[in-house]
Every structure is written in structure tokens, then in C-alpha cells.
């Protein structure tokens, strides 16, 4: 029988540190994907993710059972990604370059080229729009959950998601950033 997150947390807090491996194993890949898309860099994402798991472990005493572990952890990760992203913002801008749409590699592999094109487009979104878009469409959070997590208002979040979608459509169809 699979243990619930709350049962695992209780075991860790009772002194079974190794039980934390179950939570890491359970959520690593899901949140690695979020961190990669938030930061656009696998190494930065892995660093932010590892830091977040360690910070969450240290703070398990502050985790409240009434809150879902993934939601609680997601808040830690998003904040960590903001910090890492802010530190390396200069590199983001360098990688983003100008708005001209490049030719993507692997012309014989549509799926790979499509993936690269999405990464290129995501890198051109403002960070707050990219974050809101990913929380909505990748993590499938409600706007209420997003507001709780980010501290932003629901109206602002809706606007960010809409603008992110508009920009992505523009970038992916015309290759230039819309308004």
C-alpha cells in the first residue's frame, strides 16, 4: 500500500530521515520539469530543485497537514527559481537575444524542432508571465491557488496568463513578439 504524503512527512519528523526519499522520488521529475521551464536552463533548474528539497526537509516542522505537500513544495520551488532567475537574469537576456526567430535544428525531426521552438518562445516571455502561464497550464493550478502561491492578485494573474498566451501565439506563428 502506498503511503500518503502526510504519512511520509510524519515518519521523517519522527526521525526516519530516509523516508524523505519517497517524497523526493515521487515529486522530483514533476518539479524538475517546472523548474526547467521556469529557468530555461537544466543546471540552474537542478540546483534550484535540490535547494528546494533540502529547504523543504529542514522546514518540514512548518508544513501543515491540511495543506497538500506538492502545493507547499511548489511555493518553495517557485520562490527559489525566482531567486536563481534574478541572480542569472543577465544570462537569460543573453540567451534570449533579439526577437528574430532562428532556424531550429533537426529539420528532419518535427517534434524536436517544435520543442526547441517552444523553449525559444518561452525564453522571450517576461518572467512573471512565464511563471503564471506554467502554474496555470503545466501545474494546472486554480487562480486562487496561484494567488496564494505567488502573492499576486487573481486579476493580475489572469492578465499575465492571457498575455503569455498571446505572446506565445504570436511568437510561434509569426516569429515576433506581440504587444
Amino acid at each position, binding site marked *: 500500500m502506498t503511503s500518503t504524503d*502526510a504519512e511520509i512527512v*510524519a515518519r*521523517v*519528523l*519522527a*526521525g526516519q*530521515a*530516509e523516508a*524523505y*526519499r519517497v517524497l*523526493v*522520488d515521487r515529486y*522530483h*521529475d514533476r518539479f*524538475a*520539469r517546472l523548474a*526547467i*521551464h521556469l529557468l530555461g536552463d537544466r543546471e540552474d533548474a*537542478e540546483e534550484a*530543485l*535540490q535547494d528546494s*528539497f*533540502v*529547504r523543504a*526537509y*529542514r*522546514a*518540514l*516542522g*512548518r508544513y501543515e*497537514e*491540511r495543506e497538500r505537500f506538492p502545493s507547499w513544495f511548489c*511555493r*518553495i520551488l517557485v*520562490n*527559489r527559481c525566482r*531567486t536563481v532567475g534574478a541572480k542569472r537574469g543577465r544570462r537569460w537576456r543573453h540567451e534570449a537575444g533579439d526577437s528574430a526567430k532562428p532556424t531550429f535544428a533537426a529539420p528532419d525531426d*518535427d*517534434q524536436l524542432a*517544435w*520543442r526547441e*521552438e*517552444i523553449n525559444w*518562445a518561452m525564453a522571450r516571455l517576461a518572467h512573471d508571465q512565464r511563471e503564471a502561464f*506554467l502554474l496555470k*497550464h*503545466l501545474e494546472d493550478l486554480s487562480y486562487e491557488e496561484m494567488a*496564494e*502561491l505567488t*502573492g499576486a492578485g487573481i486579476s493580475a494573474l489572469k492578465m499575465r496568463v492571457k498575455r503569455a*498566451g498571446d505572446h*506565445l*501565439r504570436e511568437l*510561434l*506563428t509569426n516569429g515576433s513578439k506581440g504587444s
Partner: protein
Amino acid sequence: MDPREADPKDLIERVTAELRRPLPPQPERVEAVMRRVVSARPARRSPYYWSVFVTGAIAAGLLFAVFGTRDRTSGPPKRTGGVGATAGAVTVRFTLELPQAKRVAVVGDFNGWDSTGTALVKSAPGGRWSVTLELPPGNYHYLFLVDGRHWMADPTMPHDRDPDYGSANSIITVL
């Protein structure tokens, strides 16, 4: 079909589908996390942490009864220099008036956010809880942990939003 040729209405769905594509399993990454976790300060469980939360009425009563403060009777923080004291450390007294509480601890940067915290001692008969710490100069975030389950900012001190957890922490600056 080339995904870029999709109807614009479906484009976001196709982007989302690609973003959601699972990553290859990376067991070595899990091991890397666990190596760091093992070397981290272990989490501790508060005895009452998993008990059912008190009702809203009790919680509200508890909050209204709180009058936390830095101890004003002890004067300004005193710099200490005796044998065993941390060089340049300042004596800081944390107090909280909460007669109903059975246990109070202060948890913060100065004790590594250990959830067992640093216990405050109740003075009879007023219900004031207090503890004195020797802290080197610096800024410290902290919270009170009441009865092992209620996290409470110090209402008399400035608050700051925790960059990692999103909650409000009290801040003390030791000069």
C-alpha cells in the same frame, strides 16, 4: 502534422502538451538530493504537531489574548563579553504574554529553524513567557511556536515575507 500548423485556438494546448512531456527518469538526481538531505539538519517533530487544529473560536480567542513584546523592563540589549559568551554578542530577551499557552518556543535563524525551537519559560503568575539569548549583531527572522503547533509572528516587531515559504516572519536587528 507539424504542430505549428495547428489552429491558433489549439496552439496553447499543443504547447502545454509538449511542456508536460515527462522527463527521462533520473534516479541519480534523487540520490544527489538525498546526499544533501542526510548532511542537513534533521527535521524534528513537535509532539502535538499532527493533532487536529483547534476550532476557529479557540484560535481567535488565542490570538486576541496575545501581547508579545521585547522585554521593556530589561532596558536596551546589553553587549556581553564574559567567559563563554560569543564575542560581541548582545543579550536579547524574547517575551510573549500568553497565559493560555502550555508551551512556547522561539524558532528562527539563530537556532537554524529547528522546530523544537528554544523554549521560553513561563513566569508565575502573569503568564508571560520569556527567554534570553546571546545573539551576535545581525538581522534575524523568527516566529513563536505555541503548544507545538501554532506559528505566530511577534506582534510588536516588524514583519517580513519569508522569501521561501511566503509567510510573515518577525525580524529583529541586533546592533
